[in-house]
């Protein structure tokens, strides 16, 4: 599944560039950072993955639900990206009654996928 995503996300890129981006780490090179954001958006909107639109209004997404708050001004409100990673990994730690699924704890998303989504969130 993860591999499928990587393939579709990068299919427009040449193989050597992909290898370079992977080697360099996503955040390190500007090209990598950009593709992580695109990948993060894709994961966030994908119904089989983040499916964040089920509950959140997110710029650029269709048919959002109303259960969670709109995701905007993220960088100002969460300057520390680790906080976002923690919310995505398991929001029940902050709020035991939350409806937000524990994406990391229950392995709906891998650490890498969560990191890509956080990159995307920081552009909102």
């Amino acid at each position: 599944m993860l591999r499928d995503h990587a393939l579709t996300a990068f299919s427009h890129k040449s193989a050597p560039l992909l290898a370079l981006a992977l080697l360099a780490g996503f955040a390190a090179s500007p090209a990598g950072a950009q593709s992580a954001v695109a990948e993060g958006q894709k994961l966030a909107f994908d119904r089989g993955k983040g499916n964040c639109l089920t509950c959140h209004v997110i710029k650029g997404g269709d048919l959002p639900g109303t259960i969670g708050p709109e995701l905007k001004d993220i960088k100002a409100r969460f300057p520390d990206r680790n906080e976002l990673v923690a919310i995505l990994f398991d929001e029940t730690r902050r709020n035991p009654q939350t409806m937000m699924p524990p994406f990391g704890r229950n392995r709906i998303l891998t650490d890498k996928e969560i990191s890509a989504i956080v990159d995307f969130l920081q552009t909102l």
Partner: protein
Amino acid sequence: MKARISLLLGSLSAALIAFALASPRVVAADKVDPVADAKAFQNFFFQKFPTVKHEDFVNGPYSVNEDMKRQWKEKEEFPPYEFALDAGKEMFSTPFKNGKTYADCFPNGGIGIRQDYPYFDTREGKVVTLELALNRCREANGEAPYSYVKDEMASLTAYMAFTSRGKPMNIKIPDDPRALEAFENGKRYFYSRRGQMNFSCASCHVQSPGERIRAETLAPALGILNAMPIYRSEWAGMGTTSRRFVTCNSQTRAVPLEPQADEYRDVEYFLSYVANGLPISGPGARP
């Protein structure tokens, strides 16, 4: 597998119950008290939606959304469940091969009795739902049982609900420890988180009624079975209580149980009991 994990989160679901019912007594309950539970359950929704008339809670998502309510009222002029109602009436009066009919299996010939289901059968020691009773009636008369989720079963229950419209839900808990246990079991299932998404039934229908999950408005848990069975455009047809339970579990990536599994019967018992006093409104029509 995950369902079991969520059962372990006892303290967590207790916290959710406390949140949901806003009644410390419920959490402290080492003694099962259905009367107090039902009262707290109803008050929670009455307070959350102070402008909704109490008897309106039986209209699912429409009760808590004005725009949808308008569309629904228009729809009721040509109700999409009419074909099922006609079919159900016809089936109900057609004798089995042995000459008997459904009427022979039920009190009052099966007319106007929907509000009494499910009931706790003290001989069997289990909850008996209307769907189950219908299939047992068929089998006792040498007929093959129907699928629990749609078609004939939905038609029959639609007709039986229709003849009971307006009658207040009237579920009894007999003086039998197993009946109390069934109620408690259903309640526990309803509030336990399960599946990869970690939702309980209450996450959606107690914590978030009236909110939209994608494009769908969530129905409040109070009176949520009074309109069963329902027509859904998404299903392009009718669905029973069994169908809705299975769908809610599988759509949220939890492993659904078999229709009429003991736990589903207990959930139905719990949800129907806490809706006591609210009128039967089935069959229903949904977007």
